């Protein structure tokens, strides 16, 4: 297995190559406004660093959010186009699941916890996990005050609202290495991943113009 993984659903632009056993190379840069500029160079660089030719890849794993849409779409359309051009399967991974995988690797294994990322507009994208790391609730998008998170929580959304998420800590953003690790483990276990379709969770903002406005004074 040689997986190229990347994610643009959080402020991080991150890419990694995974051989089914371990991460061979990973890049991580935080710049919420430049996903479009940074992603392809990051992919190119991570393959060079891993010493892997793109034609040797066996699949692509991409974070399908939830996350702010403009950045999120950069990852998804890149994955779709690479999959098409290189004739590779594209596996979608819920970005919150990848953060959860990383949090467990960093010490949260064996206890329930909540992952929350920043959804802007005073809301968070969130999901909760049990002691075995299985997602039990979410993904959802809500105001922090309306949630009852687990005793432990991780992610930039949790860190942003300490009142709602007491004792929140890192990882802040997703890392493609963790996303690749999660995808590799699921694939090895024979489980299906998600389709390459964004988890928007919100309907598009679209205000219907309030009828035709008269120009003559009333």
């Amino acid at each position, binding site marked *: 297995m040689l997986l190229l993984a990347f994610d643009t659903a959080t402020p991080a632009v991150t890419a990694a190559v995974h051989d089914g056993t371990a*991460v061979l190379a990973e*890049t991580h840069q935080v710049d919420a406004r430049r996903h479009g500029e940074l992603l392809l160079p990051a992919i190119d660089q991570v393959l060079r660093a891993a010493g892997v030719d793109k034609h040797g890849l066996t699949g692509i794993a991409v974070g399908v959010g939830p996350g702010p849409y403009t950045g999120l779409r950069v990852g998804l359309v890149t994955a779709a186009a690479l999959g098409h051009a290189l004739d590779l399967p594209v596996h979608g991974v819920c970005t919150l699941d990848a953060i959860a995988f990383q949090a467990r690797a960093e010490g949260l294994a064996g206890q329930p916890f909540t992952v929350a990322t920043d959804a802007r507009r005073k809301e968070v994208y969130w999901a909760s996990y049990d002691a075995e790391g299985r997602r039990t609730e979410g993904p959802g998008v809500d105001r922090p005050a309306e949630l009852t998170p687990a005793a432990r929580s991780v992610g930039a959304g949790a860190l942003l609202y300490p009142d709602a998420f007491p004792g929140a800590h890192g990882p802040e953003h997703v890392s493609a290495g963790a996303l690749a690790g999660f995808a590799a483990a699921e694939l090895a276990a024979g489980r299906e991943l998600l389709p390459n379709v964004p988890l928007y969770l919100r309907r598009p903002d679209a205000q219907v113009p309030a009828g035709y406005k008269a*120009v003559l004074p009333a």
Partner: protein
Amino acid sequence: MADEPLVLGIETSCDETGVGIVRGTTLLADAVASSVNDHARFGGVVPEIASRAHLEAMVPTIQRALDTAGIKASDLDGIAVTAGPGLAGALLVGVSAAKAYAWALDKPLYGVNHLASHICVDQLEHGRLPSPTMALLVSGGHSSLLLSEDITSDVRPLGATIDDAAGEAFDKVARVLGLGFPGGPVVDRTAREGDRKAIHFPRGLTGKNDPEYDFSFSGLKTAVARWVEAKRRAGEEVPIADVAASFQEAVTDVLTRKAVKACKDNGVDHLMIGGGVAANSRLREMAQQRCDRAGIRLRVPRPGLCTDNGAMVAALGAEMVWRDRAPSAFDLSADSSLPVTEVHVPHTHFHDQAYDALGGGAA
């Protein structure tokens, strides 16, 4: 480089996902997926809806274009994409896709200007553009007079709208008349039944001291709305076809008058008209009459190539390859306000530094 470069072009600046394939100046495929019906009930393009539709349509539209052209992606000599101007989120979907295809297929990437593409598309219809060419671009997003010496490197703006684009005025007048969205085609159709001399609507910026090549359609739009409202208030029936025809006459009068004047003033004997409004039948007719009288050769692509499409991007991309222009780097950004003078966005020589700046490396 190939005499007849084979180039795929991607256009996502507004609500159409366009993918075109050209060989030199020959059109091989022009696939379009439009989200226009999803916007109709809002009376205008909703950016988030457009961006979502581009993501869904991208790969299927590329495949459709390749199938129509009967080529394999690996046959291509380059990938071109609209880098701007346009809706930021919509552009970004196309730019990201183009980069991924170019990188995966080891083909040069050309980030090109949407307005220059509107001009260059005429090469698919009438052969290579003469130098210089005067271009009048009119659509829902732009109304500009441009002088091009070389469509891959030298496009100069002579004038532009100072308020609404011509196409916007069509949309707004269509709304006033209750004709629906988009306004261009329906106003054109309705106007055919009307008297274009019935009402004399104002011609913006045609006074002695007004800027010669700039346009203004906001006052015209308001004048039409006032006229219609006054009729309605008086309890009279609104002669919809006459209003549509008279409004359309005012728009096309100003556009063609200024375009022909720009040609004469600058000693240019070719006028190209592009953009969605160039599909308007009265504009085409009046432009032909006035150009004939002034001894100017008029070039207008067929209506399907005037609206936003991928073929126009491919046409400019092929010209870039043919003229050996530098490709774009993979850190190419989508620029919603890309100036028309930036016909293409070449290699910045920054990308080695960009790689270094990314950090990370072997784990």
